[in-house]
């Protein structure tokens, strides 16, 4: 069978161009606006995409982490710089923890038969659909009054890890099933114990799956607003919480807010371009294979 690309009707290329423009348009517009002064934003004679770009908005947002003092910033608001650091820390730690626990649990669910296996696997499946809004009330109550973890990184990392675990377990199961069992048996014959088999045989094979799971977990922890908003205080706030707090005011400085939004969007955009294959595999793994 020939895999060669055939020449297709130009109409299909037109359609693809339209689709690309439609899905990139809003993102490019946000990028463009983030380089625009607020005066230009409100001036209807200035085009949406062609104007004199400025880095001023980014300087305003990042003023306290820059190595120089931007001249146009009268008062440096440290909220954003701090929340950017918080976001990075929370997202990275919860991703590492989720992956670590998730791949061990997924391995046990796929390769061992033990009491309670079906219960665990059914529960994980059901937990996948719990929306953050449903967790809002109980998590707020428990974290504040029982665990005393409100306003701490430990508290928010605990919620994010728990929220992501079911999904990670589920997605990694579909990768672990594909690891040839003969490999594991051979390692066992050579005297490896289950932990060695897991670490040295299984993990290296499921690397693509781990990458996909890592991206999905990071994305949720990085983007989450609702629980962060309920649990975190002024010093521990993450970027999404900061953004929503700054747009409740009536007069919006669009340039600055778009620069903030762009900074929040950059890591997921980078992941998408670096690992789109893994993301697509992860996305289709569940639905297409069932």
């Amino acid at each position, binding site marked *: 069978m020939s895999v060669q690309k*055939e020449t297709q009707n130009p109409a299909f290329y037109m359609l693809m161009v339209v689709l690309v423009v439609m899905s990139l348009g809003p993102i490019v517009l946000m990028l463009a606006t983030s380089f625009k002064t607020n005066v230009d934003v409100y001036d209807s004679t200035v085009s949406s995409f062609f104007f004199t770009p400025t880095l001023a908005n980014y300087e305003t947002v990042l003023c306290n982490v820059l190595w120089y003092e931007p001249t146009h910033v009268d008062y440096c608001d440290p909220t954003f710089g701090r929340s950017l650091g918080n976001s990075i820390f929370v997202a990275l730690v919860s991703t590492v923890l989720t992956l670590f626990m998730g791949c061990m649990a997924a391995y046990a669910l796929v390769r061992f038969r033990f009491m309670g296996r079906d219960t665990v696997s059914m529960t994980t499946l059901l937990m996948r659909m719990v929306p953050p809004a449903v967790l809002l*009330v*109980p998590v707020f109550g428990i974290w504040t009054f029982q665990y005393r973890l409100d306003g701490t990184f430990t508290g928010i990392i605990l919620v994010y890890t728990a929220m992501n675990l079911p999904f990670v377990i589920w997605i990694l199961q579909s990768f672990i099933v594909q690891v040839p069992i003969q490999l594991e048996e051979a390692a066992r014959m050579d005297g490896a114990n289950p932990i060695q088999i897991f670490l040295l045989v299984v993990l290296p094979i499921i690397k693509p799956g781990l990458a996909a799971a890592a991206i999905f977990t990071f994305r949720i922890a990085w983007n989450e607003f609702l629980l962060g908003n309920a649990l975190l205080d002024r010093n521990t706030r993450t970027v999404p919480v900061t953004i929503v707090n700054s747009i409740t005011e009536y007069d919006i400085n669009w340039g600055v807010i778009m620069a903030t939004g762009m900074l929040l969007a950059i890591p997921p955009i980078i992941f998408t371009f670096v690992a789109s294959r893994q993301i697509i595999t992860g996305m289709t793994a569940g639905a297409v294979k069932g």
Partner: protein
Amino acid sequence: MSIAIRANRLTPYMFMAPAVLILVVALLYPIGYMVYASFLDWSPSQRIGEADFVGLRNYANLLTDEAFRESFWVTIKFASVVVTLEMIIGVGLALLLDRNIRGMSMLRTIFILPMMIAPIVVGLMWRYMYHPTVGIFNRTLKSLGFEEGIPWLSDSTWSFVAVVIADVWQWTPFIFILSLAAMQSLPRSALEAAEIDGATGWQKIWMIKLPLMMPVLIVTLLLRLIDAFKVLEVILVLTNGGPGLSTEIVALRIFRTAQEFQELGEAAAMSNSLLMLLMALTIGMFVFNKIQEGRAERMRLAANQEAH
């Protein structure tokens, strides 16, 4: 002899322990707590022990609460409209573009972007575009001679449309990517046989492609439906549920009941209702999957028997 039998009995528990511990402490316990809290009259300043037990009062309140009924209706309307639109556009595009076209993988990469970006940021982008004076839509309309523009976020009908458009923009690619993957894993032989029998393009789509893809399409639909009930941030940033209650979906209602009205018990009762709805959908998906697997198994057995 398989590993499963020979392994130390404790090994699986050791592998499971950390995940199970976290899930119990930070997911199962909170959900159980919420079910209990939904029977309490509870404000955020109280510990749960101090709250009064009020039985089913919160649920009874929900049934008579106009605002909640409205938001429930808005949620159903929102979910069914976006999922229908996304399925039609997504599957349609997949059918159109299921061919060897250069640049397909680039298109898929770009298509994932809207799903990866924070919902908060998606809300921001669209809020800017819908802005009555500086937004790109009204500016374009103005330059075309429509001085009035469209009251995107200040009119109750238009704001619903605006929220739907933003969601369709963000999530149609999901359906597109899944159905394209399903289409490309269809058995070539069936399509070739149809071609030999002289089937037209439409016949191939209606008689072969769509029926064969149906299992995947139904799972995709259910996944998307479950997610549509979870949407919150985009709407929060775009309209904050307004104007009036026209875009206030249940998730947003829960957020506001807890945050603004400080009625934790009532918010818990709402969460519980939403959770049960989602649970039903998830179990539906699970059962559907099991039935599909069973059918595939039987067909394989039948095929094997015929071969012998």
